[in-house]
């Protein structure tokens, strides 16, 4: 499926991604698409429903092992007026992952009001033995989607100087399986 078709299936219009933040989408073996923008019924949630969740709804249900494509869909920016997308084909079970990253600052005599930044990462483990992985990163501060970037799930690196290496990633939360 092309990025235009996928976005059309979510929004009914091609390519333009009318969201302020990035989000992930996955295609399962069955052909079904699931995205972070889906809403699921959850009687335990105070509102009775909540957004589709990577850990609860993919890892928790076992669908994490049925992913065949992992996408990141990124908003329109001045660098990318139509938005941007990244796609990872998943050929081996247990290798896709997704996470968000945040630095939050303050607590000193800061005169800057805004203090939070986020990035989103989708990735695929390419070598289960060494942990080598390929990722796309949408950097919300810089408003750009990276090219495919190679790092390691055991020692996740930093992609720019104001971010510390993420180091270990949680297999329990993210659902990757190295067996």
């Amino acid at each position, binding site marked *: 499926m092309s990025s235009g078709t996928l976005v059309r299936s979510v929004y009914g219009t091609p390519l333009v991604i009318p969201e302020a933040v990035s989000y992930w989408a996955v295609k399962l073996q069955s052909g079904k698409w699931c995205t972070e923008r889906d809403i699921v019924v959850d009687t335990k949630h105070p509102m009775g429903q*909540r*957004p589709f*969740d*990577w*850990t*609860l709804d993919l890892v928790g249900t076992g669908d994490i092992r049925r992913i065949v494509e992992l996408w990141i869909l990124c908003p329109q920016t001045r660098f990318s007026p139509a938005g941007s997308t990244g796609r990872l084909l998943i050929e081996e079970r247990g290798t896709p992952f*997704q*996470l*968000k*990253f*945040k*630095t*939050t*600052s*303050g*607590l*000193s*005599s*800061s*005169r*800057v*009001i*805004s*203090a*939070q930044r986020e990035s989103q990462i989708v990735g695929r483990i390419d070598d289960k033995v060494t942990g080598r992985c390929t990722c796309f990163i949408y950097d919300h501060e810089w408003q750009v989607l990276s090219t495919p970037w190679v790092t390691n799930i055991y020692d*996740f690196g*930093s992609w720019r*100087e*104001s*971010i*510390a*290496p*993420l*180091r*270990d*990633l*949680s297999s*329990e*939360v*993210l659902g990757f399986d190295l067996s």
Partner: protein
Amino acid sequence: MSDFTSITLQYNTGADSASGATWTGNTLQFGGSGNGANELRWAMSGASTTTPSATWPYITRPSSAPLAITQLWAFSSDASGQKVATYDGTNSHSWVLRWSWDNTGTFAGTLQFSAFGDNTHSTPQAGTQPPVAHNDAITNGSSTDTSNTSYLKIAAYGYGVDSSGNQQSPTSSGGAAGSSPSSFTGTNGAITTTSSAWSTWQSAQGWLQYIANGVIPQATTAGFWYWTAILYTGPNMTTSTYTPVITFQYAYS
């Protein structure tokens, strides 16, 4: 899981013990409001619970050797704060500060914290005085006063919450937080905490020198990660008003 609803800093206005510490209501949110709110402020004397940021007392730079600043205050609004009772510019107390997170989120990677000159999170220029744009004298440090480490030192206790969900807190009777640091203390890279023990003291110098949690705390489990700090000043620090930020970095799914 979604992001945390609340990650905050709490400070102790009571005694240095599990039973004597006072945390209730002593919470600072991340992000300065721009008018003096949610600030940690250091002082030697002359500060009070109602001193606004604009008239916060100066600290006189020492003429010979570096010294530790002996008072730490936490201000939830510009002219409404409290003294952190167990901060005295030494490592003598364990129940001083703590990160607090709720049970709505799940960490997906390593927790880390440090300090930067401002919210651009530009890498400090170790040892450079006077500081350049987006640096400050505190996190840059001095070749003479601090051996190019930050003037701000930090130490953290254990994992906060371990991977099995157990809260790790300092010894209930309080006491020393690790071995006493000096103005020269600091190690390049991360100091990684170990289970139920005070970390080695570290310099808070951006992501050049910082503290990292040794595990990823258990999912959807509220917790406290205890830490403390010492701010030094020295004869080679360029004088000015500095407004560094303390930065907490984490990942979630």
